[in-house]
């Protein structure tokens, strides 16, 4: 699984950080999403999928390998 984020689409809701803080973080200056890792370990993959589904602006893409 690989995660990518679109910072232009992001609205800084923080939903992804609430779901998986190990994978997602927010930029200091404006709260826009940053990735802590783009390849989440197996135990965080389900939560990462949920984070992508709960993003209000569809800024997270999950590519299953």
């Amino acid at each position, binding site marked *: 699984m690989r995660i990518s984020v679109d910072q232009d689409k992001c*609205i*800084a*809701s*923080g*939903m992804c*950080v*609430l*779901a998986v*803080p190990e994978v997602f973080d*927010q930029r*200091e*200056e*404006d*709260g*826009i999403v940053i990735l802590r890792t783009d390849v989440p370990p197996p135990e965080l993959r389900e939560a990462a999928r949920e984070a992508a589904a*709960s993003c*209000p*602006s*569809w800024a997270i893409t999950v590519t299953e390998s």
Partner: protein
Amino acid sequence: MTHPAAPSPTATAPAGIPEYPMARASGCPFDPPPALRALQTEGRISRVRLWDGSTPWLVTRYDDERALLSDPCISSDNTHPGYPHVSAGALERRKRAPTFINMDDPDHARLRRMVTARFAIKRVEALRPAIQRIVDELIDAMLTAPKPVDLVEEFALPVPSRVICELLGVPYADHGFFQSNSRILVKRDTSPKAAGEAIDKLVHYLESLVTEKLAHPGDDLLSKLAVEQVATGEISTRVAAAMGTLLLTAGHETTANMIALGTLALLQHPDQLAALRETGDPGLIASAVEELLRYLSIVHTGRRRVALADIDFGDVVIRAGDGVILANDAANRDTSVFPDPDRLDIDRGTRQHLAFGFGVHQCLGQPLARVELQVVYATLYRRIPTLRLAVDLDQLPFKSDGLVYGVYKLPVTW
């Protein structure tokens, strides 16, 4: 008639198109109106009639609402002639103090991003000790006050008001002024004249504050806007003040209603209240907050939008220029997403509700609202374990006429 009256909730328009918003059933203050649930069962989309006689589309199902709120052909621009205004007062507010809440991208994103940093998860989490202190101080004061106490006046309103004041850099001493003016703005039957005067007073007040912050900046959000955006010429003092007004009003009215109405809902569900009072599990407390947000859906007049292009929607085509209302209170009771949706279950454990909306306009203050409600629900019932209503449920004044639902007063004792 000098201004349009709020629609009579029970009347049906002559053409057979139901009026919206609809009335709740008596004795069921937490449930969406039966007529709204009936529309949700009958079909995906229907026409409703608003206070001004317009007949926008109403959408009530969870998946449909999420899809439309993410659709680039759906606009929040309330200067568009087809936009379904919630009230004559709301229309007046937009004319005098436009904010990003009613703009589309790229203007929306440009302005919203000026204030998002302070609402990031870590920044809000850092406020938790200060919020706990405010909650504890207000409970201390309540415990020494003569009973019964109006929980709205003594607790539900002061908690978020003090928090948003600290975050913005607004003196809390002025709370009588900003609370009374925002109270005018959140009533659906407020005349355009009264709404205009209230918004002008608030914006003027915020303009003076922004000007003051320019000269003597602090560490608050208004100072940040003054120094980084106003001083650089990116936005005017007026635009900064309009944003400040939005954050100040939205920042206390909504959470205050969740505190009071949430407490009432828990008092009516003693098993749920007991589970919450006795738990030390932050996970269950967070889940209870999400469940009360879903169950109560205090934004009960729908999310308002207008179509910018034709949208194929099941059997109908939403035409460019048509108004569209997304009833998030109905969506949050959609059986296809929430099993047994009318049951309050603090252990439900889902954040998928639409209480904060969805799409690029999803509530900016949601991380702050979550932490405030977590602290309140984890503290109030533990510190006052015998808390109970001081009047009968049917004597409570509900905000049926509000843009945001809640109770005007909540007399409690212990």
